[in-house]
């Protein structure tokens, strides 16, 4: 059974979410604060986390960062406002996805399931990006000296999907569907922020990308 961590300070929402996810067959850990959430995760682990941005003391962003530092698990943030700045900051903090309050519960469920369905694509062949060696069947990226470069599962998926496209351009919605597994209303900001994060990890100069290039009006492609 998938284990889900819910960090939400509003008691009523937290209880309702717990009941809903339990009804869908999840094991639920819930925490009213970021501190409790991170502690729970360290003790119990989880397959996916839902984190409210507006938390007292330790913010949702900080909670995301702490969870991300410990694990690759998918994190969905719940933003109070649909402000681009908030969403981007949340994604920059390591979240994979976001929903805004008041969210449609079925949509949250669908997103959570999509994230859990995702498995690393091990069929892709290994390839080199400059000094980096991407090995999909091991799910790792290594520097030439053998040290491992840490990518989140979303980032890794993004990279391998672009690689298997064989130099073809993938549009933002193509990527949303392949990487996030949505066949409903997505948000292209998700793609843009993750591409930016990925660039800071794999590009020698992230502001002048050599491998992960933007094709204006079309999307992104990977130059091998």
């Amino acid at each position, binding site marked *: 059974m998938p284990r889900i961590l819910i960090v939400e300070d*509003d008691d009523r*929402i937290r209880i309702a979410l717990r009941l809903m996810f339990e009804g869908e067959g999840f094991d639920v850990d819930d925490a009213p604060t970021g501190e409790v959430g991170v502690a729970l995760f360290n003790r119990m682990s989880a397959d996916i986390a839902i984190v409210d941005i507006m938390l007292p003391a330790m913010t949702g962003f900080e909670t995301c960062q702490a969870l991300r530092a410990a694990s690759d698990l998918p994190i969905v943030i719940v933003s109070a406002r649909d402000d681009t700045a908030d969403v981007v900051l949340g994604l920059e903090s390591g979240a994979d996805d976001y929903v805004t309050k*008041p969210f*449609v519960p*079925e949509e949250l*469920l669908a997103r959570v399931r999509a994230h859990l369905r995702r498995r690393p694509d091990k069929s892709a062949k290994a390839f080199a990006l400059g000094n980096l060696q991407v090995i999909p069947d091991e799910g790792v990226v290594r520097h030439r000296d053998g040290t491992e470069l840490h990518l989140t599962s979303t980032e890794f998926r993004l990279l391998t999907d672009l690689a298997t496209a064989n130099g073809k351009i993938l549009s933002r919605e193509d990527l949303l569907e392949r990487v996030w597994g949505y*066949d409903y209303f*997505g*948000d292209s900001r998700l793609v843009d922020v993750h591409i930016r994060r990925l660039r800071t990890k794999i590009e020698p100069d992230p502001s002048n990308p050599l491998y992960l290039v933007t094709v204006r*009006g079309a999307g992104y492609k990977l130059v091998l």
Partner: protein
Amino acid sequence: MHRRSLRLRLLVTFGLGAFILSAFFASLTYLGIKHVLISNQQRTDLNQSFANAALVRSTLYTSPPELPNLLNSIEKATNSNVLIQTHNQWLSKSQGAVTQDVSGAIIDAAVKGHATEQTLTFRGQEIFVVGLPIPAVETQFFEVFQLSTLSHTLGILLLLIGAGAILTSLMGISGGLWVTRRTVRPLERVSAAAALIAGGELTTRLVTGNTDREVQQLTDSFNAMVSQLVDRLERDARFASDVSHELRSPLTTLATSATVLSQHRDDLSPVAQQSLDLLVGDLAVFQSLVEDLLEIARSDAGAATVLIETVPAVELVRQSVRSASQHHGIAAPPIEVADDVHDPQVNVDRRRFERVMSNLIDNAHHYAGDAVAIRISVANELLVIDVDDAGPGVPPEEHEQVFQRFFRGRAAHDRGIARGTGLGLAMVREHVRTFGGTIAVMESPEGGARFQISLPFQEGVDE
């Protein structure tokens, strides 16, 4: 009706007023001066005549043959003509004298021993005739003075006064111009500012520091009014925003709990199931209402949350249409791109643009059985995006109203559709305006409704 111009009316009033006044005073002055001049002249002439008559009398006593010489010298000295009559016979007259100048009435009076005087126009000339009896020698003395020299003076006077009157009228008109400017300009400023404010430029204020107290008062009250209005608008917007924010958490709890109930639907009695369905249905309406309210509140709050990017338009429309159709679970309408559309780039906030397309496609779905086509073309240097359907259309009288908040058109009543929030199209218009574009509703080629978005764009440059 064409309104009369205040400016023109003021000018005409001032010009005409000045003209009438100056003409009136000019005529009064002219007539007064003329009267004084003429009566002065006549008094002088009369005195002269008495003196001349005395001279004639003494000459008649002493040496009557000298009379013609005397008369001629009088004519030379006083520029008048003298005639002497005795026993109804003209005794003598000066060289220029004409007997017709002297009327019978004057002669009769003089014969009867009365001194008379008469002003008359004779042969086009104004003349002043004096008749004096000289009873001692049974003679009548007549002297004819020409008033033409006076007429000349009066002519010049008339010219001067007339010129003065015209000058005064002109000054009246220029005074009118000045007053008009002083009074109409502040009015024009107020109306320009009001137009700006009506157009959404809520920071517009009138410039203060005018020296006129009345204008200053107008400026102050106008600015105070606008400030209050803006405060009120902001309060209203904040209120809507605050309420929606407060609703978010309980609404999330409600929606999630309803989902939990739905998970256990089979455990419920048929009555409870039915009421659960009602609950779930209206929660969805409630949810979109709050979402739309929040979205509008964000637009009202200003550009702080808008993220404008330059995006290739055709791709953007394709993407938005696809994701909107998926979101609403309906078939994506075909996208028709006109031949003259190359690679237009538009400056929009992606997320808001997606909301716009999503709303229009959802509307078409609910009111017209789905959009039949999305058509992209270029007209008047604007990129035109048409969302066309083949439904009943929007009646012309509702073309403007459909974009108003909480407006529910005939279509909604006819079809008994209660799920709309009444905010969708208002939000769509807000968003399109944010992108510097416009939206209008008209008839589609299929006879249904066409929602037409016009956006400024620039042609893309190939990289």
